Structure formats: C-alpha cells, structure tokens
C-alpha cells in the first residue's frame, strides 16, 4: 500500500514538476539552512522539556504507582492471613462449644434419669402400701359381713321357731346356724 502510495506520489510529483517550474519543495536547497536551524532549535527545546520536566515527573509517577500497588498487594495478603486466622479461631470455638453442649446434654440426661428412677421407686412403694391397706380393708369387710350373716340367720331362725310355736333355744339355734353355714346340713 505504501509503495503504491509512493509511486502515486512520484507520479504526482512528476506531474507537478512538469506543470510547475519549481518542482518538489523538498529539493529546494535554498530553504535547507532555515529548516536545519529551526529543526535543531526544536529538538533542543523538546529535549530540554523532556529531561527537565516530563521524564522525571512521569517516571516518579510510575514508580509511585508501582509502590502503591505493591503496598496494597502486601496489605491485602496480610488481611487475607488475618481472615484465615479468624476463621480458624471461629472453627475451633465452634468445635469446643459443640463438645461442651454434648457434655451438658449428657449430664442433664443422667440427672433426669436418676430423678425419674427415684420417683418411680417412690410411686411403686406407695402403690404397694395402698394395695396392702386395701386388702386389709377388704378382709375386714369380709369378716364383718360373715358375722352379720350369722346374726341375721340366728334372728331369722328364732323368729321362724317362734312363729312355728316352738320355744327358741339360743344355744341350739346358734349351733344349727353354725352347722348350716359350715356344711349345708339340716338338723
């Protein structure tokens, strides 16, 4: 592309040369001292601007930025380590707390079990006592009932004997009732 452009420019240059009398201004040697003088002035000024102001300033800015970046990276590394430490401590505390909780739970369970056993034993004893009392009461009631039956039977027997016109004899009635109650035997 560039060579094409150069050729085109050459052609154009020739055309211009043919058309005008001056030719290429680049080859006008009368302007050379002027061009060279001002070019040297320009280059010296640019060189002074660069070495006195621009380059030291830019290099210091770049160095400063590099320093800041390095510091920030170091700080980040440090913070990361700290975070890791904190995480480890947290995990340790968590494990300890878990063990402690387990221990407390076991203790509580044992205490409750002991209390429960005691209460059950007490309740069993109370139940046994109540049962014995009740059995005694039943026996008493039964004995009492037997006595009452004998009494009623004697009274009834006496009345019957009296109604039949006999003379009730207390001893024989008692004996008869007793015998009747024992074994269904009639006198």
């Amino acid at each position, binding site marked *: 592309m560039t060579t094409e*452009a150069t050729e085109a420019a050459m*052609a154009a240059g020739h055309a211009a040369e043919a058309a005008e009398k001056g030719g290429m201004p680049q080859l006008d040697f009368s302007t050379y001292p002027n061009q060279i003088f001002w070019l040297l002035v320009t280059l010296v000024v640019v*060189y002074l*601007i660069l*070495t006195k102001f621009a380059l030291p*300033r830019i290099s210091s800015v770049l160095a400063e930025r590099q320093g800041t970046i390095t510091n920030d990276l170091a700080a980040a590394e440090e913070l990361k380590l700290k975070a890791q430490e904190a995480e480890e401590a947290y995990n340790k505390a968590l494990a300890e707390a878990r063990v402690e909780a387990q221990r407390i739970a076991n203790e509580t369970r044992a205490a409750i079990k002991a209390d429960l056993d005691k209460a059950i034993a007490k309740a069993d004893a109370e139940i046994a006592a109540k049962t014995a009392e009740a059995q005694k009461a039943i026996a008493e009631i039964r004995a009492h009932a037997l006595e009452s039956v004998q009494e009623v039977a004697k009274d009834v027997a006496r009345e019957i004997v009296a109604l039949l016109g006999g003379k009730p004899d207390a001893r024989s009635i008692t004996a008869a009732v007793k015998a009747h109650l024992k074994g269904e035997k009639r006198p």
Partner: protein
Amino acid sequence: MAAEAESETGLVFHPMEQFKIEPLFGEGPIHWYTITNQTLWMGIAVLVIFLLLVVGTSRRALVPSRIQSIGELAYGFVYKMVEDVAGKEGVKYFPYVMTLFMFIVVANFLGLIPTSFSTTSHIAVTVVMALMVFVGVTILGFVKHGIGFLKLFWVSSAPLALRPVLAIIEVISYFVRPVSHSIRLAGNIMAGHAVIEVFAAFAAILAIAPLSMLGIVAMYGMDMLVAFVQAYVFTILTCVYLKDALHPAH
C-alpha cells in the same frame, strides 16, 4: 502524463504545493533565521509535546487522567522499546530516543490536520535527524569499544573466506543506513499527503466526486496509521543502531 491531459479539461493538480516553505510574515527570501510556516508547525509540535507531557501530567495523579495516560503510555512504549532492543545500557540514551519519537509522532499527526504543514515530509528535516543518529552511534561505538567497534563489520560466525566479502557488504549497508532511515520517513509522509491532494483534485468532477471523497477518507485513515508506524519505525531503527554501537560483536 495523464495529469497533463486532465489539466487541459480544467482540473488543477498541485499535490506538492502543500509542502512549500514560505515566510510566515511578509515576502522575501528565506534566510536561515526566517520564521516560516514550517517553523510555526515545529513550534506547535513543541507546544503539543509540552501540553501532553508536562501540563498533562502536572497533577501527578495516582489514577491518571486521559491526557496523563497518553503521556505515560508514550513514556512506557519508548522506554520498553529502548530496553528491549538496546538492552539495559541503552536506557541511558532513552531521553534522546524519546525526543526523536515525540517530535516525529507529534509532527506526523499535526501534519494530518487539514491545511496544516507536514514538517516530517521534508528530506532536510529527516536527514538531519538520521545523521544525528548515525554520527551519534558511530562516535559512541568508537568511544565505547575503540577499534573493536570495527568488529561490527567482521562477521565472525561466517566462514573465513566469506568474511572480507561480507565486510564490504556490511560497510556499504552501514553507510546506507542514514539514507534509508531518513527517506523512509519523509517519503511515506509526503506520499500520503500528495495522494490525498490528488484525490481531492478529482473531486471537482461530479461523476467521480463520491469515489474521490471515499478515497480521501480511506487515504486519511491509512495516513493515520502511517503517521504512527513511521515514527515507530524511525525510533526502533534508532534503537537497533544504538544496540550495534553498544554491542558491536555479532
């Protein structure tokens, strides 16, 4: 040529008129001290460099502004180039290389402003810069290595019989350096501007005007690329020559 025929139809071709050097104030011959349009645009280049690298970085911001970023990019770009090509010892000459790069790149881009003047399209300008580099590195080579600098022309890795032949070729190529160094830059810049001018002249014909305008836009885009690439090429060649002066042995 074709231009002759065209000019008879009313078209005017003055592709080289834009490079004409004229006194800025009044008429008359150009003395060595006369302030010309070229002087003006050299001065503007200095001003732009000052604004970019000194005023733009005056806040010394840790987080750079756009202008400061451009300055820092230019600094880093040239610094890395010098360091990569010429080595650690070359860094000492970084300010000189930076001066050349900044002047060329700013002058190239200023030349792309319509109706402006392209300082770097003049052979006189580029030859002076190329000769400064050539003379500078040659003196530097002899100061650093004495007569040993001539080893640059003695290709020790080649077979012994070939070395004298190669030495002649190396010497010729060494002395051609400033010529190619300077003409490459001036030629590219001049060509780009002249072609734009030719396209612009064709815009006078209604039928080809759209094509001509398209051509101007395309050439302008390419010239933007050329403006940077040629500054880069000039600078990196300077670094290569500097490297040869610092480490002449092949």
